[in-house]
C-alpha cells in the first residue's frame, strides 16, 4: 500500500518557513541555471539567424574576421567571376564586395564607449540578406553621406537613431533609415554605401566578398578554386560557419561560466535540501514508527520522503523558472572579444530549456532527499515508536 502524495505535500505545508527557505534556495539555483542556458541559446540563435547557408564569405587567408581582412580590387574581381555564383532576379550576379570597419560610438545616456561595425554595402547585399528589412525611413542614396542603422544601434548608441547625425573622418553622416534584421548580428551594425565609406576611411581595399551559391552543394568546388588560386591569398567559408567562428570564444566562455556556476550552486542547494529533509525525518521519528507499525513497508517510507524532497525541488524549480522567464524582456549588449565589436543578443527561453531546468530541480531534490529517506526507511519500529 502506498503512502498518498498528499501526505508529503502536507508535511511541506506544515513546516512552511523551512519549506520557503529551502525552496527559495533551489529557485535561485534554477534561476541561474535557466538564465545561463537562455543566454547561450540567445547567442546561438543570433548566430544561426545571422548567417545564411547559401552565402559564402571570402576573406584574406588567416585573417580570421572581416575587420582584419583586406581584399584588393583585383582579387575581388577574380572572386566575382566564379561560376558557382547565383544570378539575381535582375540578371546580375549575387555578389557584394563589402567594407567592414569599426568606429567608436558613445552609448546613449552615458559616456561609455562601444565599438560598432560599419559595413559598406552594395544593393545586392540587401538581396542576399533577406532577414534585413527597413523598419523606418528609407535606403541611403548611392553616393551620398547617408547611413542605415541596425535597430539595436538606433536604440543604444548616440547618433544612431533616424534623423540623427554621426561625425567621423571630418564628415557629417546622416542616418536616413533604421533596419530591423530580426534576431541577427546585423542589428548591431551600421550600413552605408561601400564606395563612399572606402573613400571616407581612405581604404583602398575591400574587407570581404560575399556571394550566394546557385547550388549550395557546390560550396566545396568554389572554396577549393578560390583557395588554390595562386593569384589570391584568400579563404572562403559558409556564412553560417563564419559567424559561428566569430563567437566561438564567447560561446565557450558562457559554457565554462555556466557549467561551473551551476555545479557550485547546485551543491549549495542540495546541501540545503539535505538539511531540511534530515530534520524532517528526525522530527517525525515516532510518526515513521507509527506508519511502519500500521503495515507500511520500508519501501513506502522511502518513496514518501523522496517524493517530499522532489516536491520541494519542483516548487523551487517552478518558482525559479517563472522568474527566469521575465529575463526574455532583456537584451545583453556586450563586446565580442574576438571581433572587438558590439554584439547584442537576448535571453531566449525554449521548451527544452524549461524542461531541463525542471528536471534539474527534481534531480537536486532527489539527491538531497535520498540519504535522509534511506535513514527514515531503515529505522527500527520499536526504537522509532519509543522516541516519541
Amino acid at each position, binding site marked *: 500500500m502506498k503512502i498518498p502524495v498528499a501526505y508529503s505535500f502536507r508535511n511541506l505545508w506544515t513546516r512552511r518557513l523551512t519549506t520557503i527557505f*529551502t525552496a527559495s534556495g533551489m529557485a535561485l539555483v534554477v534561476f541561474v541555471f535557466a538564465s545561463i542556458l537562455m543566454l547561450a541559446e540567445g547567442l546561438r540563435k543570433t548566430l544561426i539567424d545571422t548567417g545564411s547557408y547559401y552565402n559564402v564569405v571570402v576573406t584574406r587567408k588567416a585573417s580570421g574576421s572581416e575587420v582584419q581582412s583586406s581584399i584588393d580590387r583585383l582579387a575581388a574581381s577574380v572572386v566575382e567571376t566564379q561560376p558557382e555564383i547565383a544570378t539575381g532576379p535582375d540578371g546580375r550576379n549575387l555578389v557584394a564586395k563589402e567594407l567592414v570597419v569599426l568606429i567608436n560610438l558613445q552609448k546613449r545616456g552615458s559616456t561609455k564607449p562601444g565599438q560598432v561595425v560599419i559595413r559598406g554595402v552594395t544593393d545586392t547585399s540587401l538581396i542576399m540578406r533577406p532577414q534585413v528589412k527597413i523598419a523606418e525611413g528609407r535606403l541611403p542614396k548611392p553616393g551620398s553621406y547617408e547611413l542605415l542603422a541596425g535597430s539595436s544601434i538606433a536604440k543604444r548608441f548616440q547618433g544612431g537613431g533616424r534623423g540623427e547625425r554621426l561625425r567621423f573622418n571630418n564628415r557629417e553622416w546622416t542616418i536616413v533609415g533604421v533596419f530591423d534584421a530580426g534576431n541577427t548580428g546585423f542589428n548591431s551594425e551600421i550600413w552605408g554605401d561601400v564606395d563612399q565609406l572606402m573613400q571616407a*576611411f581612405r581604404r583602398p581595399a575591400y574587407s570581404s566578398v560575399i556571394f550566394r551559391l546557385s547550388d549550395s552543394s557546390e560550396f566545396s568546388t568554389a572554396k577549393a578554386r578560390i583557395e588554390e588560386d595562386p593569384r589570391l591569398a584568400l579563404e572562403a567559408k559558409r556564412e553560417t560557419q563564419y559567424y559561428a567562428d566569430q563567437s566561438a570564444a564567447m560561446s565557450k566562455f558562457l559554457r565554462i561560466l555556466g557549467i561551473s556556476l551551476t555545479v557550485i550552486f547546485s551543491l549549495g542547494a542540495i546541501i540545503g535540501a539535505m538539511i531540511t529533509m534530515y530534520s524532517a525525518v528526525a522530527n517525525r521519528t515516532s510518526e515513521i514508527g507509527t506508519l511502519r507499525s500500521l503495515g507500511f513497508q520500508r519501501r513506502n517510507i522511502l518513496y514518501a520522503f523522496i517524493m517530499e524532497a522532489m516536491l520541494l525541488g519542483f516548487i523551487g524549480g517552478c518558482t525559479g523558472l517563472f522568474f527566469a522567464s521575465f529575463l526574455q524582456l532583456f537584451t545583453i549588449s556586450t563586446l565580442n572579444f574576438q571581433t*572587438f565589436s558590439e554584439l547584442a543578443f537576448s535571453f531566449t527561453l525554449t521548451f527544452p530549456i524549461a524542461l531541463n531546468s525542471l528536471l534539474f530541480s527534481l534531480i537536486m531534490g532527489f539527491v538531497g532527499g535520498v540519504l535522509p529517506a534511506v535513514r527514515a526507511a531503515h529505522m527500527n519500529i520499536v526504537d522509532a515508536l519509543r522516541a516519541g
Partner: protein
Amino acid sequence: MFLIKLLFRNAFRHKLRTALTVLGITIAILAFGLLRTVVSAWYAGVEASSASRLVTRNAISLVFLLPSSYREKIGQIDGVKTVSWGNWFGGIYIDEKNFFPNFAVDPMTYLDLYPEYLLTPDEKKAFVHDRKACVVGSLTARKYGWKLGDTVTLKGTIFPGNWDFVVRGIYRGRDKGTDESQFFFNWEYLNESIKKTSPQRAEQIGFFIVGIKNPDRTAEVAEAIDRSFKNSITETLTETEKAFQMGFVSMTEAIVIAIQLVSFVVIIIIMAVVANTMAMSARERTGEYVVFKTLGFGSYHLVGLIFGESFVITLTGCILGILATFPAAKAFGDAMSTFLPVFFVSPRTIYLDILASIIVATSAAIIPALRVTHIRVAEGLRKIA
C-alpha cells in the same frame, strides 16, 4: 568562557546538520571569493595602468592607424617627456587558442615608460640591438617552454605571413598586478618588413604611449595633443592609460555585472540555507529557551545565544572557505591564464568574504531570535509537553 563553550556545544549538537551547513557555507564563500577574483582580474589592466601615461590613438577607432610622423609632433608638445609607440600585431602562435597579446613597440622608449616590466641590463641591450628580438612575459614563456635564444614563429592575422622572432628577454612583473603574458618585438622589424610587401601600409602606428613630466597636468596635455591634430585627415583621441583600459572593460561590462550579480546570488542562497538551519535549531530548543526564561535569564541572553551560534557556524564555514579559495584560485587561474593573465586573491576579496558571512550570520539569526523574545513562558512549556 562558559558562554563560548555553550555556543560551540549548541552549534555542534546536531553534528550532521551543522557539518552540512558549514560545508554549504564553505562552498558558498569559495564560490563568492572566486567570482570576486574573476571580477578583479577583469579590472587588472585598469589597476595596473599608470595615471602618468597617456595613450593617443586614432579618433575613429583602434582599427585605424596614425602616421608615424605624429611622434615628432607629439614630442614637441609642452609637458611631454617621452613618446613611445607601437602596433597591435595580432599574431597567432601555432593555433588560435594559444592567445597572448603581442605588440610591435619601440624597445628603448617603451621600456623607459614601463618600468614595471623587469629585465636584466643584458636582456634590455639585446632587445634594443637585435632587430628580430622579442621579449615575453614569464607567464607566456613558461606556458610554451620558451628560453632565451629560442626562435618563435607567429602567424600574422593583420600583417600576413609567418614572422620569426628570437627570444632575447623574459620579463617579470614588478608588482603582483603586472600582466606577465605579453609579447613585444621591435617596431622597426615590422615596419621594414611591410615596406617590402605592402609599402602603402608602412610608417603607420597604432598607438602612442606618452610619458608626461607632471602627472597633475594629464588632462591639459591630453587636450593639447588632440588639439594639434584637430581637423587634420587623422584626428587623435588621447586619454590616460587608465581611461583607455577602462574603455575596454566597460565594453564588456554586461559580463562583469552578470558575474557580480551571480556572486551576490550565491550569498543569498547560502543565507537561505543558514537561516533554515537556525530556524530549525531554535524551534527544537524552544523548550530549553523557555526554561532559561523561567530561571530569570533575560531575552537578550537568549538572543545572544542564537546569534552566537549562528556566528560560530557561519564563521567556521567562512574560514574554511577562505582557506580553500587560495588553492582553488591558483588552479582556476592556471586554467584560465589565456583569458585572465593576472589572477590572484586580493585582500579586498577576503574582507568581502568576512563581511558577507557576518551579514549571513546576522540575517539568519533574526527571525529565530524574534520568535524567542516573543514567546511566552507558559506557551513554550506547553509545547514540550
